[in-house]
């Protein structure tokens, strides 16, 4: 009874303030949709489903979030749709992947840029790591770079595609070590890139930390370095590239989060920005993410805005030579 009264009182206050304010306070009144620009079952889709599973709880949005997949062309199809056709009423959310969409907008040929979207909150950060097959002769990044120096352009290594985090990491490595490498993009994403490392088709590879962690557990690969500012809790024994003497920051880290299209009313953005990070902090969410080997990294709207701006600058500089 007490709970009911409290809820009624809460409802009454929201109602009155809603009327007094601008009519957006009752948001959301119906289920919300979230667009994921990668296929069902991929890492982004998988994580998006977990972090939104508690959206219907009273302490979160109070309305469920349904995931809609719009895969194709490395995410371009979904983000094009989101920038040009999605309703900016707050009921259409989208998942973003940094640096992918910013790198693609710098490369050109798409209808969006960082200005087309309004971030809400960040839920995860999956750093890129350097992997080699379990039986490889390389035991540290220095070994890899030494080989590349002796055989310029002959060190083949795989990654999930062009203009994604893995490619950025590859460019950073080339720049920091001052060597020429042969980056082989896969058309089957991180899984395809990992397969070519394990099968010995390439000498090494850049891959997602979460996938590499699983592959190492299965005894298939060695992880030589993390492309991030600090070591990761999943891999406390693997040094960062910085520790191994290469000037590489976290520009290639794959940040995943929620955004809305530009033009969404500010009160709705504020409400989402206040609620969504707490939704990510839910214990059940954290448990499932940890079980799946997906590193969480919760950031608020302001932090994400700063991160987007910083990324754009680094990427413009890095991709200028291509």
């Amino acid at each position, binding site marked *: 009874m007490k709970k009911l009264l409290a809820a009624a009182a809460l409802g009454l206050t929201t109602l009155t303030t809603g009327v007094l304010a601008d009519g957006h306070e009752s948001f959301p009144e119906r289920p919300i949709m979230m667009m994921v620009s990668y296929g*069902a079952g991929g890492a982004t889709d998988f994580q998006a489903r977990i972090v939104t*599973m508690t959206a219907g709880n009273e302490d979160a949005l109070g309305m469920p979030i349904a995931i809609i997949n719009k895969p194709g062309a490395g995410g371009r199809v979904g983000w094009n749709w989101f920038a040009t056709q999605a309703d900016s009423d707050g009921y259409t959310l989208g998942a973003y992947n940094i640096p992918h969409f910013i790198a693609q907008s710098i490369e050109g040929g798409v209808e969006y840029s960082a200005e087309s979207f309004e971030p809400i909150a960040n839920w995860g950060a999956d750093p890129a790591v350097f992997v080699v097959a379990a039986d490889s002769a390389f035991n540290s990044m220095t070994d890899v770079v030494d080989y590349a120096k002796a055989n310029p352009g002959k060190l083949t290594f795989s990654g999930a595609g*062009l203009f994604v985090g893995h490619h950025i990491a590859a460019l950073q490595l080339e720049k920091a070590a001052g060597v020429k490498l042969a980056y082989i993009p896969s058309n089957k994403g991180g899984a395809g890139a990992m397969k070519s490392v394990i099968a010995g088709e390439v000498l090494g590879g850049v891959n997602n930390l979460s996938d590499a962690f699983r592959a190492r557990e*299965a005894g298939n690969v060695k992880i030589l370095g993390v492309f991030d500012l600090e070591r990761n809790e999943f891999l406390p024994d693997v040094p960062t590239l910085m520790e191994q003497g290469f000037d590489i920051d976290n520009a290639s880290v794959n940040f995943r989060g929620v955004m809305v299209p530009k033009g969404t009313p500010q009160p709705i953005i504020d409400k989402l920005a206040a609620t969504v990070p707490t939704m990510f902090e839910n214990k059940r969410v954290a448990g499932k993410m940890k079980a799946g080997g997906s590193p969480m990294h919760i950031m608020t709207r302001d932090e994400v805005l700063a991160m987007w701006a910083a990324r754009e600058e680094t990427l413009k500089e890095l991709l200028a030579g291509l």
Partner: protein
Amino acid sequence: MEFLAYFGDVFAPINFGLLLLGTIGGLILGATPGLSPTMAVALLIPFTFRLEPAQGLILLGAAYTSTVAGGAVSAILLKIPGAPANIATTLDGHTMAQKGQGARALQLSFLASAVGGVFGVLLLIFLTPVLAKWALAFGPSHLFWLAILGVTVIGSLDSSSVVKGLLSGCIGLWLATIGFDDIMGAQRFIFHSSVSGGINVIPALIGLFAIPQVITMFAKGRVSLDAEVLTVEKHPIRDAFREVFRRSRALSIGTITGSVIGLIPGVGGQIAGLVAYDQSKKMSPEREKFGTGHSEGVIAAESANNAMVGPSLVPLLTLSIPGSPTAAVLLGGLLIHGIFPGSDLFDNNPDVAWTFINSMLIGQILMCIFGLYVAGLAAKVAQVPNAVMAAIVLGLAVFGSYSVQNSMGDVYVMMALGTGMYFLERFGFSAAPLVLGLILGPIAEANFIQGSMIANATSNVGQYFFTGPLNVGLIAIVVASVAYSIWMELRSRRYTTKDDAVRKEEALS
């Protein structure tokens, strides 16, 4: 024999209930056009959040096996292949249904599916370590040659002439280039935002097969309103059993081709059915009957696409690499419960791993029983009047294309390709080679680019693509396949007169 120890778990009441639910639900989802096995499994994942890991996987495994078989229902009765795996089933299956033998076609397809499926899962149980090596053996150069081998099949597949087959294959290859290219991200032929993501195979499949059908039905409906009432023959299940095992050549070709090709990451599932169909056609003494409602065609295609289910999971379960889109979705289902596939799965969670595999084995048999049970009823679909049928198929086609990525663009693509195909069919072209081109184009292209990038960095292109036993073996098969097609074409030309050709053409249209 470790798997036997966990058989009891499958029959625990809750587990068995989930298995039944997954099987029946999977059959229904699979029979719905546009809902491919990958999507069906993805839709079910949220339901597994609250289940025990083993229970969740039972549901997913059962749904996977039965959606693959369920796709045959719409392929046979409506000529809409539910997924690329079922393309070959339409070729003979739908012709049988049109003759009123829908029940027979469905029974044969479910029995063949069960035989192929059980064999595939047994391979998964007994030969996993060996198979894992085989799955890894295929690098970019080998996948390239494999795709080329697929292209050589195009000419001899369901066409009155090799030239027309190759031509429609080329149209398919061209369609495959539309969109952002897979590796470099270059834009090609994007003249409308609907095709910016390329032509998705599922809407293309639905359009190319179903729409010409719909247009023909509407056209016929005006001419003869009541002439088309078909009698649907009853077909005793006993006869179907006898027939499947009498056609042991088609059955074994289908099963073996399906399991071998199904294993190759990224390629297998989509082309296993077509390659098996083509092989059993080439080896059959009654090869001219293929395409006219011949039971061998259905048996080979369906045994192949279910045989691929078990082996397609080998890379996922042993190496933690999803080899097919469906396997990627299953990986999500495992991760959500904190289970990492790979050696860890069999060492630390044997109950989950083996219960999952066993449930696929039992699922195959349950699927067959339910399939046989509904076959007689489902075949009555053929009695629906043409005009009504056309409307239903059209509705399903729109629904199926839209549901793939919730995009109207896919519906436009489906309609445009379908209408084009109606006119091409008038000139004796057929849809199957076109779809095969659409599927194989990206595989050949991406692997060629990847292969040549690796080759340029290490040795040279010639050495990379033309040496090594697997490359040479595949090239030899390609050459043999082309030579065989040319020889058959020449031989049949010599013995057919123009009248025969005209008659054959009329029989086909």
